[in-house]
């Protein structure tokens, strides 16, 4: 069916590998720990 084919294409598209050297952005919060966490 059309619906199944479209879903499969989307799934294939998601499997495109990231470029070499790609670093995912850090989560916006919380930020980095500067000293230590207690």
């Amino acid at each position, binding site marked *: 069916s059309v619906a199944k084919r479209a879903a499969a294409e989307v799934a294939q598209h998601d499997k495109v590998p990231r470029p070499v050297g790609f670093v995912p952005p*850090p989560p*916006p919060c*919380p*930020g980095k720990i500067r*000293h*230590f966490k207690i």
Partner: protein
Amino acid sequence: APTAPPPPLGCDDPESEAAAEFAVNYINGHSHHGYKFALNRIEQVRVLPQGPNNEILFLELDLLETTCHILNPIPLANCSVRIFEEHAVEGDCDVKLQKLNGQFSVLASKCHSHADSAEDVRERCPDCPLLAKLNDTDVLATVSSALNDYNSKTPDAYLRLLEIGRAVKQYHPVRMVSVEFAVAATNCTSQQAKDNLGACQLLPEDQSNFGFCTATVVTEPSQDFTVKCQLYGHQPGVTYPHSGQDTS
């Protein structure tokens, strides 16, 4: 078509860090007790746009106690965060700021501080001393002995206790009490204080000398007693009640 809203501000974005630095300076600048606190982590940041070049920021900050007393004039950047092994103290702060034409101002702030749990310290450092209550009998006795000892050996202005900043006790492998306390100079010499302590008053604000002392008493396996005091000099804009506790 309406323009897309800007991406949410991240906790490590330069604007968040600038706001947090401003907030920490505000918090330290408006505290007259205890120690300066340094930024450890920005936990959360939210921005409410108010109009052109005008926004409200809500920050949740995680701070750590430094070794600098709040009266110490050296900049926060030169203060060391108290290490974990000294039983660290954390501060949690909620701060509301306004950023208007690039200038920050603090509209409200609320902070709570709490020491690391004894279990946490014990787990990672079994022999580290733990924080003691400031009204602990041994702590009060150590502060009293230290101040009396310092005053008896120093002919200059007689020092009075402003506040005890922290104290730790240890039972193994040595038995010891270590204290830190803030002091202020009076208008008396040590000899005058010995003759008539009641007449000794803290120096007026424009002449006042504040300082900070550390003392350690070891009772086992051998006895040892050390006292060190450092006077900061005049601190404009800082006042302490003249009815401060005196250990003499």
